[in-house]
């Protein structure tokens, strides 16, 4: 009798905690489970009773890795509730800031969390000695994205200058010009990253699922648009609850979601599958070189989609800076008039679509909050992928199976610290 028993307690190189559990006897699978025992942080309860300014201050702290996404979703939810429309300059700066976070998050994930799997290392730490050039390149790209964010909002982790109504401080034209030059230089580093990933063997695993992402007729959507699905087309953001359908499962503090099928996917691949035609020219070229074609059903290709998006973000940043400079920067004081109401903010965090839904009273005090994070929407899809993948690889060794499952989880880039409602891999 062969007993396969995998229990990965706290998968490493993901943000937050998740366990993989697989049990099989004589090739017969008895149990496959993706568990999430993260300590919940109760943000929705914490936001209650705070005024809108405190809400803007607190909401980035839901997740340090995508704090700009949470800040933006939060700001836009409050603006929707109060009926505020930020100026064109503010929207351009917001988009530029957003590209900074997308780039920094994707680079962190690709180089620090994913690449070690392909380069046969347990982390980026030994690579610092053996592949110094690769590590230095990663650090350069990450730092550049950080510097861009610092320039626009004062600080990458827990942004400062972006607030309800716009920006309380704006960069100077000269600083933007210098930044633009640095971004142009960084194109080389991204090209080398494409070369690196071209050489890596990505597992060939296919499972069709539903892909959900924001869609905007004007551009590859990050902070605007409707909710699009590869199954059902577009729906307004206000319909988000009928799409996410959260439910709880006893083995996880994260909530799970489903829409038309058993599960759906959000994130870079879901965005690519819905919006590939709107990618920048260089990003489209890279997708072609890397063999990424829409609609792609291989979850391991999420990482390739992230790389393609990184190139898009860099190209778009250059264009945005041109537009901002051509318009001329001017100081604007965000004007906020509070009023009672409900507002929903939807953005594409690096890991997928994110919703903040706030209700305020007439003094601008938050009375109810609901936040639905991307990782929770992916949990069920990870579970279903595992159920499809394990039978295909059941004859491999326990180590190989474990490794492939860990790589699968990492491909999703689960950011389980996102703590709002809440993951671990255990093979018992």
């Amino acid at each position, binding site marked *: 009798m062969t007993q396969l028993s995998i229990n990965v307690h*706290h998968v*490493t*190189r*993901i*943000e*937050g905690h998740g366990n993989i559990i697989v049990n099989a006897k004589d090739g017969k699978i008895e149990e496959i489970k993706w568990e999430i025992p993260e*300590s*919940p*942080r*109760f*943000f*929705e*309860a*914490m936001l*209650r009773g705070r005024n809108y300014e405190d809400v803007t*201050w*607190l909401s980035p*702290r*839901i*997740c*340090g*890795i995508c*704090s700009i996404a949470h800040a933006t979703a939060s700001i836009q939810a409050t603006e929707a509730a109060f009926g505020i429309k930020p100026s064109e300059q503010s929207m351009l700066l917001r988009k530029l800031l957003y590209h900074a976070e997308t780039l920094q998050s994707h680079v*962190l994930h690709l180089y*620090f*969390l994913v690449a*070690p799997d392909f380069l046969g290392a*347990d*982390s*980026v*730490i030994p690579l*610092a*000695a053996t592949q*110094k050039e690769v590590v*230095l390149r990663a*650090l*350069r790209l*990450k*730092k550049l994205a*950080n510097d861009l964010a610092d320039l626009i*909002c*004062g*600080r*990458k*982790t*827990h942004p*400062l*200058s972006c*607030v309800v109504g716009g*920006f*309380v*401080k704006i960069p100077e034209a000269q600083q933007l010009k210098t930044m633009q030059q640095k971004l142009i230089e960084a194109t080389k580093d991204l090209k080398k990253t494409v070369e690196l990933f071209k050489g890596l063997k990505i597992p060939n695993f296919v499972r069709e699922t539903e892909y959900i992402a924001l869609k905007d007729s004007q551009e590859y959507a990050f902070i605007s648009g409707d909710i699009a699905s590869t199954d059902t087309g577009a729906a307004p953001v206000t319909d988000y609850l009928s799409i996410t359908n959260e439910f*709880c499962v*006893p083995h996880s*503090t994260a*909530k799970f979601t489903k829409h038309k099928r058993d599960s759906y996917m959000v994130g870079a691949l879901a965005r690519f599958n819905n919006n590939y035609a709107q990618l920048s020219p260089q990003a489209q070229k890279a997708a072609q070189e890397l063999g990424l074609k829409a609609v792609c059903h291989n979850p391991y290709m999420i990482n390739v989609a992230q790389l393609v998006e990184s190139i898009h973000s860099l190209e778009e940043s250059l264009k945005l800076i041109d537009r901002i400079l051509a318009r001329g920067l001017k100081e604007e004081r965000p004007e906020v008039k509070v009023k009672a109401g409900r507002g929903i903010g939807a953005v594409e965090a690096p890991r997928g679509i994110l919703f903040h839904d706030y209700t305020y009273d007439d003094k601008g005090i938050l009375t109810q909050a609901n936040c639905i994070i991307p990782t929770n929407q992916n949990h069920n899809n990870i579970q279903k992928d595992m159920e499809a993948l394990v039978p295909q690889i059941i004859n491999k060794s326990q180590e190989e199976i474990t490794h492939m499952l860990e790589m699968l989880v990492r491909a999703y880039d689960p950011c389980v*610290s996102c*703590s*709002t*409602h809440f993951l671990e891999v255990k093979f018992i």
Partner: protein
Amino acid sequence: MKPKVAFFDFTSCEGCQLEVLNFGEELVELLAQIDIVNFREVRSRRADNYEIAFIDGAITTESDMERIKKVREQAKVLVAMGACACLGGVNCLKNFLPMEENLRIVYGDCARYYNTIPARPVSSVVPVDCYLPGCPMNRYEFLKLAKALLLGKKPELLNYPVCVECKLAGNICAFDKAETCLGPVTRAGCNAICVTSGRHCWGCRGLVDEPNINSEKEILQKHGLTIQDILEKYRHFNGYLIEAGGGPTQHHSLSGEGQLERRPSPPLPLSGEGREVSK
């Protein structure tokens, strides 16, 4: 031998861990001097023979309590990293509601699956040797502390208020913009970055050792604010000490002499008996 270092995350947003990775080339230099044996977020290999433990996050579950005690048993030096670990941080906001209420708000009918305890700083469970305040912590302060530890020294925190740095930065005072700022009683070391970036201070670095509450009161009076306004503001990061009943006067000291934890600050074992940490 390089010192063996471990990173452990408790209930946090992982922003402080991310700050460690946010260095440029300095990170490669640092990696050459230490041996990271445990850092779940970036490394698969895990070992438990560490000497220095960096903790981020607050303690919010029974299992957190057990885990931090184990880390304390192993670590010669335990560093609390960020407002969550140093003060309880934003996590303590939930302490102002009954725990069942928190569970109900977030999980509704599913609340029965989960358990949680009031959030608390690391020092309320085990002794802490060094603090890296801030939300997020300041990565340059982290580097300074790492260098000091490598030399077997105990790093010092600044003990004057954020206002000093703020004035040096040439900012317009937030009080003059009709905002409430916690700068006058909050520990400097962040260069008043929030004020410089157009906001005001929320007190994320905790109180200075002897906060001049009277001068804060004067400022408040001048601007028509009450101590209640400021306590409201204090809740964001310092809720744990407000709960303890004292408000800003009964302060939680980050240099080990506070009233919440009256324990002598022990010499650092790494510097203790002339023990040299190899470079």
